[in-house]
């Protein structure tokens, strides 16, 4: 077993520098790497390019890096619900590349799996396809999208072990598995680091080979963005 365990978030983020490109898992605030984000704020690295489906809310998630003006460019599919984001974008402080959600996921997966680029129908005939190669297959038009390139991927899992194996919970899975192994270094934080051998090899979502560093996360807030409930009848 190749040991990926590091003791804490400080160790896990060694080598982080200003100007780097990061991938960050999560959908809205669900399944985001809370510990890594907090540490990035502390490290105060700047001029970052962040690949993440959303940009958090004003006071949580990637919103914390935005408030601190650490982000130069965001690559996301949906950035509503964040006033500071909107302000920085409309004023031109923040560069924004909006990418269809399925394309965003596959650009991660392509990087993980060694595909240089792929053809997708999403965005054909729209702004998103401007300047990109398009091509017809079987009478349908597709856009060529390159794989992402990133320095670090920060993902959050439910359970993990020192071999780097990961299991996600519910919809907190989202982009996290697709980002593992898609950057030079993948850092996984987990709610529960279990002894090696405890995870069923059949149920591992991400084999440890895709993860370089893993640590036991702390103090998860797991905020709910839209608390919707029904009445007991």
């Amino acid at each position, binding site marked *: 077993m190749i040991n990926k365990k590091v003791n804490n978030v400080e160790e896990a983020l060694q080598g982080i520098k200003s100007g780097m490109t990061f991938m960050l898992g999560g959908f809205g605030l669900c399944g985001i790497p809370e510990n890594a984000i907090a540490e990035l704020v502390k490290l105060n690295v700047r001029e970052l390019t962040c690949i993440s489906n959303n940009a958090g809310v004003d006071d949580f998630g990637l919103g914390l890096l935005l408030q601190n003006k650490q982000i130069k460019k965001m690559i996301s599919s949906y950035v509503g619900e964040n006033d500071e984001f909107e302000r920085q974008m409309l004023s031109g402080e923040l560069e924004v590349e909006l990418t269809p959600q*399925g394309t965003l996921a596959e650009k991660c997966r392509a990087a993980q799996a060694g595909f240089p680029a792929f053809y997708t129908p999403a965005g054909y005939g729209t702004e998103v396809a401007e300047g990109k190669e398009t091509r017809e297959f079987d009478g349908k038009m597709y856009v060529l999208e390159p794989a992402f390139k990133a320095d670090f991927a920060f993902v959050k899992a439910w359970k993990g072990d020192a071999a780097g194996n990961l299991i996600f919970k519910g919809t907190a899975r989202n982009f996290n598995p697709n980002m593992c192994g898609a950057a030079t270094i993948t850092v996984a934080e987990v709610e529960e680091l279990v002894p090696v051998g405890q995870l069923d090899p059949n149920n591992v979502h991400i084999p440890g080979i895709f993860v370089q560093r893993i640590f036991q996360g702390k103090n998860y807030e797991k905020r709910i963005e839209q608390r919707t409930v029904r009445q007991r009848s």
Partner: protein
Amino acid sequence: MLDKNGIAKRIAQEVQDGFYVNLGIGIPTLVANYVRDDIEVEFQSENGVLGMGPFPFEGEEDADIINAGKQTITTMPGASFFDSSMSFAMIRGKHVHLTILGAMEVAENGDIANWKIPGKMVKGMGGAMDLVASAENIIVAMMHTNKRGESKILKKCSLPLTGVGCVTKVVTNLAVLEVKNNQFYLLERAPGVSVEEIQNATEGTLIVDGEIPEMIL
């Protein structure tokens, strides 16, 4: 004239037995409330769940189980969770049978715009561009006109497009329209709405062929 729930109720009639359905944010989400309970339908949400159920009871919300609108949800027996790449495999691979989404504008050639108002609002497309580029059955839920009374059912979209030539049906507060041959075909009127009112609210080419029935809700 229909309110949002009325639009959802009418769209629910389009959901057929055995359909996997993706519901967009807003009015489409309401559609789930009106689907006949004698048919088998499963709801997919592109953030990674198939087999969504109703909202949880108070106190039973789980931050790790949400839909694409970031709302807390529950799951039905037979549900599954998966990653984003697999979620869009379902969508791009045409395994999802019906996509219902909102729009700012729809054009008579089937174009749709719903993600950006240049210089004003840029929320992003989320999964909409993948959905409209892949689904063969796309129903748009929307208001027929904007707050200033201007038509959103157009000859040509003025806003940045989400997808081209993809919309098959539009259900608004005034009417049910089919999109075909670069025209809107009026299929049904909302209760109490006249053909003339619909014609006045529609900028795109509207075909009115014979007697137009009122919706049965």
